[in-house]
Protein backbone atom coordinates (compact mmCIF):
# COMPACT_ATOMS: atom_id res chain seq x y z
CA UNK A 1 0.00 0.00 0.00
CA UNK A 2 2.77 2.42 0.95
CA UNK A 3 4.72 1.19 -2.08
CA UNK A 4 1.84 2.07 -4.32
CA UNK A 5 1.58 5.44 -2.73
CA UNK A 6 5.27 6.16 -3.21
CA UNK A 7 5.01 4.98 -6.77
CA UNK A 8 2.67 7.88 -7.44
CA UNK A 9 5.46 10.25 -6.43
CA UNK A 10 8.06 8.45 -8.51
CA UNK A 11 5.81 8.54 -11.54
CA UNK A 12 3.66 11.64 -11.21
CA UNK A 13 2.18 11.07 -14.62
CA UNK A 14 0.67 7.89 -13.23
CA UNK A 15 -1.75 9.94 -11.17
CA UNK A 16 -2.90 11.70 -14.31
CA UNK A 17 -3.37 8.34 -15.98
CA UNK A 18 -5.37 6.94 -13.08
CA UNK A 19 -7.47 10.03 -12.55
CA UNK A 20 -8.25 10.45 -16.25
CA UNK A 21 -9.22 6.82 -16.68
CA UNK A 22 -11.34 7.16 -13.57
CA UNK A 23 -13.09 10.26 -14.86
CA UNK A 24 -13.91 8.44 -18.06
CA UNK A 25 -15.63 5.56 -16.32
CA UNK A 26 -17.24 8.10 -14.00
CA UNK A 27 -19.21 9.42 -16.95
CA UNK A 28 -20.90 6.06 -17.28
CA UNK A 29 -21.78 6.12 -13.58
CA UNK A 30 -23.27 9.54 -14.17
CA UNK A 31 -25.57 8.16 -16.83
CA UNK A 32 -26.90 5.40 -14.58
CA UNK A 33 -27.21 7.89 -11.72
CA UNK A 34 -29.34 10.22 -13.85
CA UNK A 35 -31.76 7.38 -14.31
CA UNK A 36 -31.78 6.51 -10.65
CA UNK A 37 -32.41 10.12 -9.65
CA UNK A 38 -35.24 10.30 -12.15
CA UNK A 39 -36.96 7.17 -10.90
CA UNK A 40 -36.39 8.06 -7.28
CA UNK A 41 -37.68 11.57 -7.73
CA UNK A 42 -40.72 10.71 -9.82
CA UNK A 43 -41.81 7.24 -8.74
CA UNK A 44 -40.32 7.45 -5.26
CA UNK A 45 -38.79 4.00 -5.50
CA UNK A 46 -35.19 2.88 -5.18
CA UNK A 47 -34.50 0.79 -8.20
CA UNK A 48 -32.12 -2.00 -7.22
CA UNK A 49 -32.41 -3.50 -10.70
CA UNK A 50 -30.53 -0.47 -12.07
CA UNK A 51 -27.24 -2.32 -12.46
CA UNK A 52 -28.91 -5.19 -14.29
CA UNK A 53 -30.24 -2.71 -16.83
CA UNK A 54 -26.65 -1.62 -17.41
CA UNK A 55 -25.57 -5.23 -17.76
CA UNK A 56 -28.40 -6.06 -20.17
CA UNK A 57 -27.65 -2.97 -22.23
CA UNK A 58 -24.16 -4.36 -22.65
CA UNK A 59 -25.39 -7.75 -23.77
CA UNK A 60 -27.85 -6.20 -26.22
CA UNK A 61 -25.05 -4.16 -27.79
CA UNK A 62 -22.96 -7.32 -27.93
CA UNK A 63 -25.70 -9.26 -29.68
CA UNK A 64 -26.31 -6.45 -32.12
CA UNK A 65 -22.63 -6.45 -33.01
CA UNK A 66 -22.59 -10.23 -33.34
CA UNK A 67 -25.54 -9.95 -35.70
CA UNK A 68 -23.28 -7.90 -37.94
CA UNK A 69 -24.51 -4.40 -37.19
CA UNK A 70 -22.01 -1.56 -36.80
CA UNK A 71 -20.71 -1.61 -33.25
CA UNK A 72 -21.63 1.94 -32.35
CA UNK A 73 -25.20 1.36 -33.51
CA UNK A 74 -25.40 -0.92 -30.47
CA UNK A 75 -25.81 2.12 -28.23
CA UNK A 76 -29.20 3.28 -29.57
CA UNK A 77 -30.30 -0.31 -30.01
CA UNK A 78 -29.48 -1.09 -26.40
CA UNK A 79 -31.31 2.03 -25.28
CA UNK A 80 -34.36 1.09 -27.31
CA UNK A 81 -34.41 -2.52 -26.16
CA UNK A 82 -34.07 -1.50 -22.54
CA UNK A 83 -36.78 1.13 -22.98
CA UNK A 84 -39.14 -1.62 -24.02
CA UNK A 85 -38.00 -3.88 -21.20
CA UNK A 86 -38.40 -1.06 -18.69
CA UNK A 87 -41.90 -0.36 -19.91
CA UNK A 88 -42.78 -4.03 -19.67
CA UNK A 89 -41.37 -4.37 -16.16
CA UNK A 90 -43.31 -1.32 -15.11
CA UNK A 91 -46.53 -2.80 -16.39
CA UNK A 92 -45.81 -6.17 -14.82
CA UNK A 93 -44.36 -5.32 -11.44
CA UNK A 94 -43.28 -1.79 -10.70
CA UNK A 95 -46.70 -0.17 -10.82
CA UNK A 96 -47.76 -2.45 -8.00
CA UNK A 97 -45.07 -1.19 -5.64
CA UNK A 98 -45.20 2.55 -6.30
CA UNK A 99 -47.46 3.61 -3.47
CA UNK A 100 -46.11 1.06 -1.07
CA UNK A 101 -43.52 1.17 1.62
CA UNK A 102 -40.07 1.90 0.17
CA UNK A 103 -38.81 -1.37 1.55
CA UNK A 104 -41.29 -3.25 -0.63
CA UNK A 105 -39.92 -1.60 -3.75
CA UNK A 106 -36.35 -2.26 -2.67
CA UNK A 107 -37.05 -5.93 -2.14
CA UNK A 108 -39.21 -6.31 -5.24
CA UNK A 109 -36.62 -4.74 -7.51
CA UNK A 110 -33.99 -6.84 -5.77
CA UNK A 111 -35.99 -9.92 -6.75
CA UNK A 112 -36.13 -8.67 -10.31
CA UNK A 113 -32.41 -8.18 -10.31
CA UNK A 114 -31.83 -11.82 -9.31
CA UNK A 115 -34.16 -12.94 -12.07
CA UNK A 116 -32.41 -10.84 -14.72
CA UNK A 117 -28.96 -11.95 -13.53
CA UNK A 118 -29.84 -15.60 -13.76
CA UNK A 119 -31.64 -15.24 -17.06
CA UNK A 120 -28.59 -13.53 -18.53
CA UNK A 121 -26.41 -16.26 -17.10
CA UNK A 122 -28.55 -18.84 -18.86
CA UNK A 123 -28.75 -16.88 -22.11
CA UNK A 124 -25.26 -15.45 -22.43
CA UNK A 125 -23.04 -17.47 -20.10
CA UNK A 126 -21.08 -16.19 -17.12
CA UNK A 127 -17.99 -15.03 -18.98
CA UNK A 128 -16.57 -11.60 -19.06
CA UNK A 129 -17.48 -10.20 -22.45
CA UNK A 130 -16.10 -7.23 -24.29
CA UNK A 131 -16.82 -5.65 -27.60
CA UNK A 132 -14.24 -4.19 -29.93
CA UNK A 133 -15.37 -0.90 -31.37
CA UNK A 134 -12.32 -0.84 -33.58
CA UNK A 135 -11.11 2.52 -32.35
CA UNK A 136 -7.54 3.32 -31.42
CA UNK A 137 -5.82 4.60 -28.34
CA UNK A 138 -5.08 8.18 -27.50
CA UNK A 139 -1.56 8.73 -26.20
CA UNK A 140 -0.86 11.79 -24.10
CA UNK A 141 2.32 13.06 -22.44
CA UNK A 142 4.62 11.23 -24.84
CA UNK A 143 2.69 8.05 -24.44
CA UNK A 144 2.82 8.09 -20.66
CA UNK A 145 -0.95 8.34 -20.47
CA UNK A 146 -2.99 6.11 -22.70
CA UNK A 147 -6.70 6.58 -23.15
CA UNK A 148 -8.66 4.20 -25.31
CA UNK A 149 -10.59 6.34 -27.76
CA UNK A 150 -13.73 4.42 -27.08
CA UNK A 151 -13.51 5.50 -23.44
CA UNK A 152 -13.20 9.10 -24.50
CA UNK A 153 -16.14 8.63 -26.81
CA UNK A 154 -18.09 7.01 -23.98
CA UNK A 155 -17.29 9.98 -21.80
CA UNK A 156 -18.64 12.53 -24.24
CA UNK A 157 -21.60 10.40 -25.21
CA UNK A 158 -22.55 9.96 -21.59
CA UNK A 159 -22.34 13.66 -20.90
CA UNK A 160 -24.16 14.44 -24.14
CA UNK A 161 -26.96 12.08 -23.22
CA UNK A 162 -27.15 13.75 -19.84
CA UNK A 163 -27.52 17.10 -21.54
CA UNK A 164 -30.21 15.69 -23.82
CA UNK A 165 -32.05 14.38 -20.80
CA UNK A 166 -31.95 17.77 -19.20
CA UNK A 167 -33.28 19.45 -22.34
CA UNK A 168 -35.93 16.80 -22.63
CA UNK A 169 -37.12 17.28 -19.07
CA UNK A 170 -37.12 21.01 -19.43
CA UNK A 171 -38.73 21.57 -22.80
CA UNK A 172 -40.63 18.54 -24.04
CA UNK A 173 -44.26 17.99 -23.11
CA UNK A 174 -43.56 14.58 -21.61
CA UNK A 175 -40.60 16.02 -19.75
CA UNK A 176 -42.76 18.71 -18.25
CA UNK A 177 -45.38 16.15 -17.32
CA UNK A 178 -42.66 14.11 -15.61
CA UNK A 179 -41.50 17.08 -13.62
CA UNK A 180 -45.03 18.02 -12.66
CA UNK A 181 -45.72 14.47 -11.50
CA UNK A 182 -42.52 14.43 -9.50
CA UNK A 183 -43.55 17.55 -7.64
CA UNK A 184 -47.10 16.60 -6.88
CA UNK A 185 -48.65 13.51 -8.43
CA UNK A 186 -52.15 14.30 -7.19
CA UNK A 187 -52.15 17.81 -8.54
CA UNK A 188 -50.69 16.52 -11.79
CA UNK A 189 -53.42 13.96 -12.20
CA UNK A 190 -56.09 16.58 -11.41
CA UNK A 191 -54.58 18.70 -14.17
CA UNK A 192 -55.22 15.88 -16.58
CA UNK A 193 -51.78 14.29 -16.67
CA UNK A 194 -51.97 10.53 -17.00
CA UNK A 195 -49.61 9.86 -14.11
CA UNK A 196 -49.53 6.13 -14.68
CA UNK A 197 -48.25 6.73 -18.19
CA UNK A 198 -45.75 9.24 -16.90
CA UNK A 199 -44.49 6.70 -14.40
CA UNK A 200 -44.16 4.06 -17.09
CA UNK A 201 -42.35 6.46 -19.39
CA UNK A 202 -40.02 7.57 -16.62
CA UNK A 203 -39.14 4.05 -15.66
CA UNK A 204 -38.61 3.07 -19.28
CA UNK A 205 -36.50 6.15 -19.86
CA UNK A 206 -34.35 5.19 -16.91
CA UNK A 207 -33.90 1.71 -18.32
CA UNK A 208 -32.94 3.21 -21.66
CA UNK A 209 -30.32 5.45 -20.07
CA UNK A 210 -28.85 2.45 -18.28
CA UNK A 211 -28.99 0.46 -21.50
CA UNK A 212 -26.95 3.09 -23.29
CA UNK A 213 -24.53 3.15 -20.36
CA UNK A 214 -24.23 -0.63 -20.59
CA UNK A 215 -23.46 -0.50 -24.29
CA UNK A 216 -20.65 1.94 -23.52
CA UNK A 217 -19.41 -0.30 -20.71
CA UNK A 218 -19.14 -3.37 -22.92
CA UNK A 219 -17.26 -1.40 -25.57
CA UNK A 220 -14.86 0.35 -23.25
CA UNK A 221 -14.60 -2.08 -20.35
CA UNK A 222 -16.24 -5.44 -19.84
CA UNK A 223 -19.49 -6.95 -18.64
CA UNK A 224 -20.75 -10.20 -17.18
CA UNK A 225 -24.10 -11.20 -15.74
CA UNK A 226 -23.15 -10.40 -12.15
CA UNK A 227 -21.73 -6.96 -12.73
CA UNK A 228 -24.94 -5.16 -11.79
CA UNK A 229 -24.95 -4.53 -8.06
CA UNK A 230 -21.87 -2.32 -7.91
CA UNK A 231 -23.44 -0.11 -10.59
CA UNK A 232 -26.65 0.11 -8.57
CA UNK A 233 -24.70 1.07 -5.48
CA UNK A 234 -22.66 3.63 -7.37
CA UNK A 235 -25.81 5.23 -8.78
CA UNK A 236 -27.31 5.31 -5.33
CA UNK A 237 -24.16 6.75 -3.85
CA UNK A 238 -23.99 9.48 -6.47
CA UNK A 239 -27.62 10.40 -5.98
CA UNK A 240 -27.42 10.64 -2.20
CA UNK A 241 -24.28 12.72 -2.43
CA UNK A 242 -25.64 15.00 -5.12
CA UNK A 243 -29.30 15.16 -4.23
CA UNK A 244 -32.17 14.19 -6.46
CA UNK A 245 -32.86 17.37 -8.35
CA UNK A 246 -29.40 18.62 -9.15
CA UNK A 247 -28.02 17.51 -12.52
CA UNK A 248 -24.77 19.43 -12.22
CA UNK A 249 -24.03 17.89 -8.84
CA UNK A 250 -24.79 14.41 -10.20
CA UNK A 251 -22.21 14.93 -12.93
CA UNK A 252 -19.62 16.17 -10.46
CA UNK A 253 -20.28 13.36 -7.98
CA UNK A 254 -20.20 10.70 -10.69
CA UNK A 255 -16.92 11.84 -12.18
CA UNK A 256 -15.47 12.25 -8.72
CA UNK A 257 -16.47 8.74 -7.76
CA UNK A 258 -14.86 7.33 -10.89
CA UNK A 259 -11.59 9.09 -10.17
CA UNK A 260 -11.72 8.17 -6.48
CA UNK A 261 -12.28 4.51 -7.25
CA UNK A 262 -9.43 4.26 -9.64
CA UNK A 263 -6.93 6.09 -7.49
CA UNK A 264 -8.03 4.38 -4.29
CA UNK A 265 -8.05 1.00 -6.01
CA UNK A 266 -4.50 1.70 -7.07
CA UNK A 267 -3.28 2.74 -3.64
CA UNK A 268 -5.09 0.19 -1.48
CA UNK A 269 -5.09 -2.60 -4.04
CA UNK A 270 -7.73 -3.59 -6.56
CA UNK A 271 -9.04 -6.28 -4.23
CA UNK A 272 -10.35 -3.55 -1.95
CA UNK A 273 -11.85 -1.40 -4.69
CA UNK A 274 -15.42 -2.63 -4.27
CA UNK A 275 -15.12 -2.55 -0.50
CA UNK A 276 -14.01 1.05 -0.74
CA UNK A 277 -16.98 2.03 -2.85
CA UNK A 278 -19.38 0.47 -0.39
CA UNK A 279 -17.61 1.86 2.65
CA UNK A 280 -17.58 5.28 1.07
CA UNK A 281 -21.32 5.01 0.61
CA UNK A 282 -21.83 4.07 4.25
CA UNK A 283 -19.57 6.89 5.39
CA UNK A 284 -21.34 9.44 3.22
CA UNK A 285 -24.70 8.33 4.54
CA UNK A 286 -23.59 8.46 8.15
CA UNK A 287 -21.78 11.73 7.72
CA UNK A 288 -24.74 13.42 6.08
CA UNK A 289 -27.03 12.04 8.72
CA UNK A 290 -24.82 13.23 11.55
CA UNK A 291 -24.81 16.69 10.10
CA UNK A 292 -28.57 16.65 9.96
CA UNK A 293 -28.80 15.26 13.46
CA UNK A 294 -27.13 18.38 14.73
CA UNK A 295 -30.24 20.11 13.46
CA UNK A 296 -32.23 17.30 15.12
CA UNK A 297 -33.29 15.95 11.76
CA UNK A 298 -32.34 12.86 9.82
CA UNK A 299 -32.01 11.77 6.19
CA UNK A 300 -35.39 11.41 4.58
Amino acid sequence: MIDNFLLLFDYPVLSADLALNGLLIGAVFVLAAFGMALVWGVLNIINIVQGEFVMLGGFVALMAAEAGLPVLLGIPIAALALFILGWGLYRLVIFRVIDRDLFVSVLATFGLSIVLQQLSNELFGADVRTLEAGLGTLLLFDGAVALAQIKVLAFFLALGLGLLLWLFLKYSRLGQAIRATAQNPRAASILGIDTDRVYAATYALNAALCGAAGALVVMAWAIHPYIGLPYTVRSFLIVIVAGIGNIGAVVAAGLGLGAFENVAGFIFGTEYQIALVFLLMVLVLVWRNLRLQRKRMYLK
Partner: protein
Amino acid sequence: MSLLLDVKGVTKRFGGVVANDAVSLSVREGEIAGLIGPNGSGKTTLFSSIVGAHPIDAGAVLYEGRDISALRIAEIARRGLTRTYQQTRIYGQMPVIDNMRISAPDVKEGILPLFRRAGRASEARARDLLSFVGLYEKRDLLAGSLSFGQQKLLEFAMALMSEPKLLLLDEPTAGINPTLINGLIDRLKRANKELGVTLFVIEHNMRVIMNLADRITCLAHGQVLASGTPDEVREDPRVLDAYLGAQ
Protein backbone atom coordinates in the same frame (compact mmCIF):
# COMPACT_ATOMS: atom_id res chain seq x y z
CA MET B 1 -47.53 30.99 41.50
CA SER B 2 -44.05 30.32 40.21
CA LEU B 3 -43.17 30.27 36.54
CA LEU B 4 -42.95 26.74 35.22
CA LEU B 5 -42.09 27.73 31.67
CA ASP B 6 -40.47 30.95 30.62
CA VAL B 7 -39.91 31.53 26.93
CA LYS B 8 -37.50 34.39 26.35
CA GLY B 9 -37.12 35.97 22.95
CA VAL B 10 -37.22 32.70 20.99
CA THR B 11 -36.53 33.07 17.29
CA LYS B 12 -36.81 30.24 14.78
CA ARG B 13 -36.14 30.55 11.08
CA PHE B 14 -36.74 28.05 8.32
CA GLY B 15 -34.52 29.17 5.50
CA GLY B 16 -35.58 32.76 4.93
CA VAL B 17 -38.91 32.43 6.70
CA VAL B 18 -39.04 33.66 10.28
CA ALA B 19 -41.57 31.39 11.98
CA ASN B 20 -41.04 32.74 15.50
CA ASP B 21 -39.65 36.21 15.98
CA ALA B 22 -38.37 36.96 19.48
CA VAL B 23 -41.35 35.32 21.16
CA SER B 24 -41.56 35.76 24.92
CA LEU B 25 -44.28 34.28 27.09
CA SER B 26 -44.63 32.28 30.26
CA VAL B 27 -46.71 29.56 31.86
CA ARG B 28 -47.27 29.44 35.62
CA GLU B 29 -47.29 26.28 37.60
CA GLY B 30 -50.78 24.79 37.89
CA GLU B 31 -52.55 27.01 35.40
CA ILE B 32 -54.08 26.37 32.02
CA ALA B 33 -52.47 28.67 29.50
CA GLY B 34 -53.78 29.22 26.00
CA LEU B 35 -52.03 30.00 22.75
CA ILE B 36 -54.05 31.38 19.86
CA GLY B 37 -53.34 32.99 16.55
CA PRO B 38 -54.32 32.79 12.90
CA ASN B 39 -53.07 29.98 10.68
CA GLY B 40 -49.37 30.19 10.05
CA SER B 41 -48.71 32.46 13.00
CA GLY B 42 -46.08 30.07 14.37
CA LYS B 43 -47.91 28.36 17.22
CA THR B 44 -46.91 24.79 16.41
CA THR B 45 -43.36 25.90 15.62
CA LEU B 46 -43.18 27.46 19.08
CA PHE B 47 -44.31 24.17 20.64
CA SER B 48 -41.64 22.31 18.71
CA SER B 49 -39.05 24.86 19.86
CA ILE B 50 -40.08 24.47 23.48
CA VAL B 51 -39.95 20.67 23.56
CA GLY B 52 -36.64 20.59 21.66
CA ALA B 53 -37.84 19.03 18.41
CA HIS B 54 -35.57 21.45 16.59
CA PRO B 55 -32.84 23.85 17.64
CA ILE B 56 -33.79 27.49 18.06
CA ASP B 57 -31.86 30.32 16.45
CA ALA B 58 -31.98 32.81 19.32
CA GLY B 59 -33.45 33.24 22.78
CA ALA B 60 -33.89 30.80 25.63
CA VAL B 61 -36.48 28.39 26.96
CA LEU B 62 -36.49 28.23 30.76
CA TYR B 63 -38.26 25.29 32.34
CA GLU B 64 -38.31 25.07 36.11
CA GLY B 65 -35.81 27.91 36.02
CA ARG B 66 -33.26 26.04 33.83
CA ASP B 67 -32.43 26.75 30.22
CA ILE B 68 -33.47 23.69 28.23
CA SER B 69 -33.07 25.13 24.76
CA ALA B 70 -29.93 23.07 24.06
CA LEU B 71 -31.49 19.82 25.23
CA ARG B 72 -33.00 17.25 22.93
CA ILE B 73 -36.61 16.26 22.89
CA ALA B 74 -36.18 13.05 24.87
CA GLU B 75 -34.19 14.78 27.61
CA ILE B 76 -36.85 17.40 27.94
CA ALA B 77 -39.60 14.79 28.02
CA ARG B 78 -37.78 13.06 30.87
CA ARG B 79 -38.01 16.28 32.85
CA GLY B 80 -41.77 16.17 32.58
CA LEU B 81 -42.42 18.43 29.62
CA THR B 82 -44.37 16.64 26.92
CA ARG B 83 -46.47 17.60 23.95
CA THR B 84 -49.21 16.17 21.78
CA TYR B 85 -49.40 16.69 18.04
CA GLN B 86 -51.87 18.43 15.83
CA GLN B 87 -51.63 15.48 13.43
CA THR B 88 -52.10 12.93 16.17
CA ARG B 89 -49.21 10.55 16.72
CA ILE B 90 -49.85 7.23 18.35
CA TYR B 91 -48.33 3.76 17.83
CA GLY B 92 -50.70 2.53 15.15
CA GLN B 93 -49.73 -1.14 14.98
CA MET B 94 -49.96 -1.68 18.72
CA PRO B 95 -53.11 -2.30 20.78
CA VAL B 96 -54.50 0.71 22.64
CA ILE B 97 -53.58 -0.69 26.02
CA ASP B 98 -49.97 -1.25 24.93
CA ASN B 99 -49.82 2.37 23.79
CA MET B 100 -50.65 3.24 27.37
CA ARG B 101 -48.25 0.75 28.92
CA ILE B 102 -45.29 2.02 26.98
CA SER B 103 -46.13 5.56 28.04
CA ALA B 104 -45.70 4.78 31.73
CA PRO B 105 -43.38 7.22 33.48
CA ASP B 106 -40.73 4.66 34.40
CA VAL B 107 -39.81 4.02 30.74
CA LYS B 108 -38.10 7.38 30.99
CA GLU B 109 -35.62 5.97 33.49
CA GLY B 110 -33.66 3.90 31.00
CA ILE B 111 -33.59 0.49 29.39
CA LEU B 112 -33.47 -1.73 32.48
CA PRO B 113 -36.85 -0.74 33.92
CA LEU B 114 -38.34 -2.02 30.68
CA PHE B 115 -37.51 -5.54 31.80
CA ARG B 116 -39.30 -5.09 35.07
CA ARG B 117 -42.87 -6.17 35.18
CA ALA B 118 -45.07 -3.09 35.13
CA GLY B 119 -46.55 -2.61 38.58
CA ARG B 120 -50.18 -3.22 39.42
CA ALA B 121 -50.56 0.47 40.05
CA SER B 122 -49.29 1.28 36.61
CA GLU B 123 -51.67 -1.17 34.97
CA ALA B 124 -54.55 0.21 36.95
CA ARG B 125 -53.60 3.72 36.03
CA ALA B 126 -53.51 2.82 32.32
CA ARG B 127 -57.02 1.42 32.59
CA ASP B 128 -58.25 4.37 34.61
CA LEU B 129 -56.91 6.87 32.14
CA LEU B 130 -58.48 4.95 29.26
CA SER B 131 -61.79 5.09 31.10
CA PHE B 132 -61.15 8.74 31.76
CA VAL B 133 -61.02 9.47 28.02
CA GLY B 134 -63.71 6.92 27.24
CA LEU B 135 -61.56 4.38 25.40
CA TYR B 136 -61.56 1.54 27.92
CA GLU B 137 -63.83 -0.57 25.73
CA LYS B 138 -61.41 -0.23 22.85
CA ARG B 139 -58.31 -1.19 24.83
CA ASP B 140 -57.54 -4.32 22.79
CA LEU B 141 -57.97 -2.76 19.35
CA LEU B 142 -55.02 -1.69 17.27
CA ALA B 143 -54.58 2.00 17.88
CA GLY B 144 -54.34 2.66 14.14
CA SER B 145 -57.87 1.34 13.67
CA LEU B 146 -59.39 4.05 15.89
CA SER B 147 -61.08 7.09 14.42
CA PHE B 148 -59.13 10.32 14.31
CA GLY B 149 -60.98 11.75 17.29
CA GLN B 150 -60.40 8.59 19.31
CA GLN B 151 -56.72 8.66 18.44
CA LYS B 152 -56.62 12.21 19.67
CA LEU B 153 -58.08 11.13 22.97
CA LEU B 154 -55.68 8.21 23.15
CA GLU B 155 -52.74 10.52 22.61
CA PHE B 156 -54.04 12.71 25.41
CA ALA B 157 -54.36 9.71 27.68
CA MET B 158 -50.83 8.56 26.79
CA ALA B 159 -49.51 12.00 27.61
CA LEU B 160 -51.24 11.92 31.00
CA MET B 161 -49.95 8.39 31.59
CA SER B 162 -46.40 9.65 31.38
CA GLU B 163 -47.12 11.96 34.32
CA PRO B 164 -45.88 15.22 32.87
CA LYS B 165 -45.61 18.39 34.88
CA LEU B 166 -46.32 20.51 31.87
CA LEU B 167 -48.31 19.23 28.92
CA LEU B 168 -48.46 21.11 25.64
CA LEU B 169 -51.64 20.26 23.73
CA ASP B 170 -51.78 21.13 20.05
CA GLU B 171 -55.43 21.69 19.12
CA PRO B 172 -56.98 19.02 21.32
CA THR B 173 -60.48 19.58 19.97
CA ALA B 174 -59.68 19.55 16.26
CA GLY B 175 -61.41 16.64 14.60
CA ILE B 176 -63.43 15.79 17.72
CA ASN B 177 -67.15 15.34 17.31
CA PRO B 178 -68.67 18.72 18.35
CA THR B 179 -71.10 17.03 20.73
CA LEU B 180 -68.13 15.64 22.68
CA ILE B 181 -66.21 18.87 22.96
CA ASN B 182 -67.80 19.95 26.23
CA GLY B 183 -66.88 16.62 27.75
CA LEU B 184 -63.31 17.09 26.57
CA ILE B 185 -63.07 20.57 28.08
CA ASP B 186 -64.27 19.08 31.30
CA ARG B 187 -61.58 16.39 31.13
CA LEU B 188 -58.85 18.89 30.44
CA LYS B 189 -59.94 20.86 33.45
CA ARG B 190 -60.06 17.75 35.60
CA ALA B 191 -56.63 16.70 34.45
CA ASN B 192 -55.39 20.09 35.47
CA LYS B 193 -57.11 20.14 38.85
CA GLU B 194 -57.08 16.51 39.91
CA LEU B 195 -53.81 15.30 38.38
CA GLY B 196 -52.04 18.58 38.86
CA VAL B 197 -50.82 18.85 35.27
CA THR B 198 -50.08 22.33 34.04
CA LEU B 199 -51.53 22.72 30.55
CA PHE B 200 -50.48 24.92 27.67
CA VAL B 201 -53.02 24.62 24.88
CA ILE B 202 -53.07 25.71 21.25
CA GLU B 203 -56.67 26.07 20.25
CA HIS B 204 -58.50 27.35 17.22
CA ASN B 205 -61.94 27.16 18.70
CA MET B 206 -62.42 30.51 20.48
CA ARG B 207 -65.32 29.33 22.56
CA VAL B 208 -63.22 26.46 23.89
CA ILE B 209 -60.13 28.44 24.75
CA MET B 210 -62.04 31.29 26.39
CA ASN B 211 -63.82 28.74 28.51
CA LEU B 212 -60.69 26.77 29.34
CA ALA B 213 -57.69 29.00 29.80
CA ASP B 214 -56.66 31.12 32.73
CA ARG B 215 -54.42 33.23 30.52
CA ILE B 216 -54.07 33.48 26.78
CA THR B 217 -51.27 34.57 24.45
CA CYS B 218 -52.00 35.52 20.88
CA LEU B 219 -49.39 35.07 18.13
CA ALA B 220 -49.47 36.67 14.71
CA HIS B 221 -46.77 36.53 12.05
CA GLY B 222 -44.51 34.82 14.52
CA GLN B 223 -44.71 37.59 17.08
CA VAL B 224 -46.59 37.97 20.33
CA LEU B 225 -49.52 40.21 19.65
CA ALA B 226 -51.19 40.28 23.00
CA SER B 227 -51.45 38.34 26.22
CA GLY B 228 -53.61 38.47 29.31
CA THR B 229 -56.82 36.99 30.72
CA PRO B 230 -59.36 35.65 28.24
CA ASP B 231 -61.43 38.77 28.57
CA GLU B 232 -58.49 41.09 27.99
CA VAL B 233 -57.40 39.20 24.92
CA ARG B 234 -60.92 38.96 23.55
CA GLU B 235 -61.33 42.70 23.71
CA ASP B 236 -57.90 43.58 22.36
CA PRO B 237 -58.49 45.32 19.00
CA ARG B 238 -55.19 44.01 17.61
CA VAL B 239 -56.33 40.44 18.14
CA LEU B 240 -59.59 41.13 16.40
CA ASP B 241 -57.70 42.71 13.54
CA ALA B 242 -55.35 39.82 13.22
CA TYR B 243 -58.19 37.33 13.01
CA LEU B 244 -60.38 39.44 10.74
CA GLY B 245 -57.44 40.43 8.60
CA ALA B 246 -56.43 36.86 8.24
CA GLN B 247 -59.85 35.58 7.33
